[in-house]
């Protein structure tokens, strides 16, 4: 165990490689993948906010500023791994293969938004804070018992560390050596509450010590650090090492959700400073430029592709069949109980429809 948790970086704010160990592993293809996915989810995020403003989407939780954390971690996963997101991690989910129109549907209050693409082990977003943390332990333990090499990643925020489920989940994961990466995005606010009021500890990584679990603190805006640290933790998990806690220090530029007004509790100019100095996309852009792999045409091409993809997803969402009232009743149990059947029947009768 170690007691100090310095923030690990691989590529610094200016796009310079600061850890030579990774030079070989950082291929052009990888860097482009990073950039592609970050701009993709940022485009999605901005679109979602604008749809919400136009009344075409419900309350939405934006993640702009946290793209490196979400993309880097999700790209480290193998396709059969499990992903346990919160309401803010659809960037990670999208990167891992969630359907884009489904994410829109989710934020439009549609049950269909929680249905994963076929075969994709993406759990519905945890809305009650920290409750997914023991779920990930259980799903990962199940993989271990089945003898696979699959692992799970669980996302959660700085505020989530205060809930009992955080503690109980990490304790279970550590006792049962479950193959999980506990991936914390410390954006330093839980709605309006700054981390200094959330906890007395200086880092979240040090909380790993309570469970004899490896803990790491990384620059969550450095996608290189995120990707390689998560990759390593996953490898450790797949080979019987158990769980790891990773604290990715990051920042959300905007509001907690579209119902939130961040100027009530913080000076938003700080967001602007971070955007200029520590933006995760800008950093990769700088890296690409100084390594000669930045091509305007390529950027233009992917920007266009992504714009089209997002537009297409919006269209799919908006053309999606209207909510079906049967869905209010039909998924509570495999076979509805008589109370549900009776209530459904009476209701459909009232609104003038036949029970199917």
């Amino acid at each position, binding site marked *: 165990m170690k007691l100090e948790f310095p923030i690990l970086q691989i590529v610094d704010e200016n796009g310079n490689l600061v850890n030579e160990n990774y030079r070989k592993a950082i291929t052009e293809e990888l860097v482009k993948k990073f950039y592609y996915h970050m701009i993709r989810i940022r485009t999605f995020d901005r679109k979602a906010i604008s749809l919400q403003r136009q009344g075409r989407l*419900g*309350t939405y939780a934006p993640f702009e500023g946290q793209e490196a954390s979400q993309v880097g971690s999700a790209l480290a996963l193998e396709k059969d791994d499990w992903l346990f997101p919160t*309401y803010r991690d659809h960037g990670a989910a999208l990167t891992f293969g969630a359907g884009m129109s489904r994410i829109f549907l989710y*934020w*439009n*209050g*549609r*049950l269909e*938004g929680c249905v994963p693409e076929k075969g994709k082990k993406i759990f519905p977003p945890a*809305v*009650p*804070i920290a409750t997914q943390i023991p779920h990930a332990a259980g799903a990962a333990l199940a993989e271990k018992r089945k003898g696979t090499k699959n692992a799970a990643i669980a996302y959660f925020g700085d*505020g*989530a560390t*205060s*809930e*009992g*489920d955080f503690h109980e989940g990490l304790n279970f994961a550590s006792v049962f050596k479950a193959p999980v990466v506990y991936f914390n995005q410390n954006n330093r606010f*839980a*709605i*309006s*509450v700054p981390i200094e*009021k*959330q*906890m007395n500890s200086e880092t979240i990584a040090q909380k790993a010590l309570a469970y004899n679990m490896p803990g790491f603190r990384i620059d969550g805006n450095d996608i290189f650090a995120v990707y390689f640290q998560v990759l390593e933790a996953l490898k450790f998990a797949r080979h019987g090492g158990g769980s790891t806690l990773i604290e990715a220090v990051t920042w959300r530029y905007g509001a907690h959700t579209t*119902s*939130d007004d961040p100027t*009530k*509790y913080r000076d938003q100019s700080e967001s602007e400073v971070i955007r200029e100095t520590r933006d995760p996309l800008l950093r990769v852009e700088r890296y690409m430029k100084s390594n000669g792999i930045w091509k305007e045409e390529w950027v233009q091409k992917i920007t266009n592709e992504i714009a089209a993809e997002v537009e297409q997803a919006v269209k799919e969402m908006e053309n999606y069949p209207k*909510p079906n*009232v049967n*869905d*209010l*009743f039909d998924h*509570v149990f495999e076979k509805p*109980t008589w*109370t*549900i059947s009776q*209530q*459904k029947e009476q*209701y459909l009768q*009232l609104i003038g429809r036949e029970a199917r």
Partner: protein
Amino acid sequence: MMIEKAIVNSTKTNQLTLVQAVTDGLRTMLEEDERVLVLGEDVGKNGGVFRATEGLQKQFGEDRVIDTPLSEAGIVGTSIGLAVNGFKPVVEIQFLGFIYPAYEQIMTHVSRIRMRTMGSFTVPMVIRAPYGAGIRAPEIHSDSVEALFTHMPGIKVVCPSSAYDAKGLLIAAIEDPDPVLFMESMRIYRASREAVPEGKYTVEIGKGKKLQDGNDVTLIAWGAMVSVALRAAEQAKKQGITCDVIDLRTLYPIDKDIITESVQKTGRAVIVHEAHQTGGLGNDIISIINDTSFLYLKSPIERVTGFDVPVPFFSLEEQYLPTPERVMKAIEKVVHF
């Protein structure tokens, strides 16, 4: 508006929404009694996600209006310690659907400490929680689970439907020597304004309120469902059916007398609530009527409630919630039995 037998210290009133009346009640008691503390997630600088505590930290300081870590069991558990040691914590649970982590603390301590110690320790605590569907909130933000607390001996449950009652009941709850769960309907937080007296006044816990007089059917509702009942009563009037409309206001202990008196007059009752039917308070009310007014009943009592399904994602919440049409249907049913 009905005349309240409440002690109002001021004749000056302000036109307030329900949520503003809550803020006003909190401010009044923070001024009045220095033992009162406000605790919760985002209640300080942010003034609460619904602005129910807007301006209070600025006025009373960080020592009295306290932003806590994100931990409902911690908030309630710590407040138990504050309460047994001389303070009067008024805690906010951000949404009633997030009260479950604190359920153990409420069930085994908040509600039991007085009995366990024969009154040596008491927990004069108020737990405020916005509840209910109808504002297109994300999932699990819309639960209406009063029945989980009315089945818990040792805590009172209150649910105002108007700004006036909200302030008066909140002050009564804070002054109550026992714990009170104070439910605030998000759907009507800003639905309308009414005259709310300045300063301190109370509305008695345990008393319902007759909102409208009629002869044929008794409608019983609370919180956001009161206006649904009122709208149904209007529709019924067009058919020549007149309704007593009762706003229950307190959910434990239920005002048995107001129900009994009305049902013995009308002989018919329709209960409206947004919680699920099985296990909902509608059943308790039917039992009260069964006990007190069996021979007066002209037809089976009807319940118009949320269905026995989890409160759905918001695209289906209007289908989940009782509507004036559903209530009207029930009125017709009890009248034409």
